[in-house]
């Protein structure tokens, strides 16, 4: 085998990206937990942890540029590095959305919940599955799987619509709830955005393997 250094650097940077995805996944599930349990301490923790995610993104970007500058990647190697660059940006934004959920948990404080949280945790669950699946598709260079995952975005969008409608009804019936309901719509919106960004990752998987940039999810919404 030749180009041992380059091979090592390439695999390292992809490992970094997977680690970052894990951090984001944890942030999302903890965000929902904090929201559900009104756990302010956990919520604060997520907000601090997001700094680490942001730092990881900048480190990865710098490392990508360094590899591009010193190793002259081409073809598949070049697509890998470009994909890593884009995916880490998406992951970082997902981290921000998770942080947004945590912030909402803080804003809601210990006010009583409007209704039992069912759909929002469901949205989070699907988003996390999608995120995990997209990175597995990346790792296995599995475009078929990536294309399947993309379609689950519609599931999340449908859930978001339902949450939105339910909360709107609540607000119309009882203006007292407007503030809390609005916060919850924001939280749901954050999750919806997360799922959207997962579709970007899936597009990168297709680009990485097939070299084509295509819009996979022509959303019905």
């Amino acid at each position: 085998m030749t180009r041992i250094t380059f091979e090592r650097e390439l695999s390292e940077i992809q490992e970094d990206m997977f680690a970052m995805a894990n951090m984001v996944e944890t942030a999302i599930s903890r965000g929902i937990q904090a929201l559900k349990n009104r756990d302010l301490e956990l919520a604060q923790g997520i907000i601090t942890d997001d700094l680490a995610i942001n730092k990881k993104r900048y480190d990865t970007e710098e490392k990508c540029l360094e590899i591009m500058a010193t190793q002259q990647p081409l073809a598949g190697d070049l697509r890998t590095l470009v994909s890593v660059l884009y995916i880490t940006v998406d992951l970082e934004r997902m981290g921000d959305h998770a942080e947004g959920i945590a912030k909402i948990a803080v804003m809601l404080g210990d006010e009583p919940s409007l209704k039992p949280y069912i759909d929002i945790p469901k949205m989070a669950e699907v988003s996390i599955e999608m995120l995990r699946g997209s990175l597995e598709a990346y790792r296995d260079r599995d475009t078929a799987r990536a294309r399947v995952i993309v379609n689950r975005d519609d599931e999340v969008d449908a859930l978001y619509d339902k949450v939105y409608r339910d909360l709107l009804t609540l607000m119309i019936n009882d203006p007292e709830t407007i503030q809390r309901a609005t916060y919850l719509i924001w939280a749901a919106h954050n999750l919806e955005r997360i799922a959207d960004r997962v579709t970007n990752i899936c597009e990168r998987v297709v680009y990485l393997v097939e070299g084509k940039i295509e819009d996979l999810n022509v959303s019905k919404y």
Partner: protein
Amino acid sequence: MTNTLASERAEQPPRSHLIIEPEGPSVFGLENVSFWYGRKQALGDISMKIPVKRVTALIGPSGCGKTTLLRCLNRMNDLIPGVRLEGSVNYHEHNIYAKDIDPVEVRRRIGMVFQKPNPFPKSIFENVAFGARVNGYKGDMRERVEKSLRQAALWDEVSDDLKKSGLALSGGQQQRLCIARALAVQPDVILMDEPCSALDPIATLKIEDLIRDLVKELTIVIVTHNMQQAARVSDYTAFMLAGVQGVGQLIEYGPTRELFTNPRDQRTEDYITGRFG
């Protein structure tokens, strides 16, 4: 596209700003080295430190003095009549140009690999054994030869016929044989003068991998006209340029990743982006 002369530049950044001395111990310390071929000055006032067990690349356009500088490091330039050096080249705190220093002793510790593979017209075994033998090695020569060939990642390809002429090998193998020959003397430093310029891309990458492997044990200084190669293999890069009247100068020196992503001097940037001249 813009190749401004030093004198034309209104605000020249201070020297110290362009030279980032490597961290950690260094094997060479150059102090104000100037060099002449007869009356023609080839190097002007070069000061730099070369770190231990790292790859340091010297890059720059043709005629910038990078090869001259390299050959100053093991007194290879002594062989040319009418040369003169000012300043000092310190190797582990000893000025190798001091009066009581023997160039043979210097070259034993500081090996060299040349631009064109130059194996001796002898067997592979003799090629590697020669250096050890002339330096009075009395131990098991077979073992030393095997070890050197293994280090040079050539053993597997030649082990079944060490009697074969070194010239019968392919270009890339010849160059690795030359590296094995240098290693057999167990040097502290290996200087490489454009070691891949006569090789095809695959052989080149093999040598580059070898360089990364060797640098765990010793120090390597490499001259290359191939910037990408410098970027790939080196830890530190020095950019040189022939200034007024063709005198080679050190323009910028620092960690390779910084020099290639964020050069501090416009001339360095122009050179590495291919906009030079």
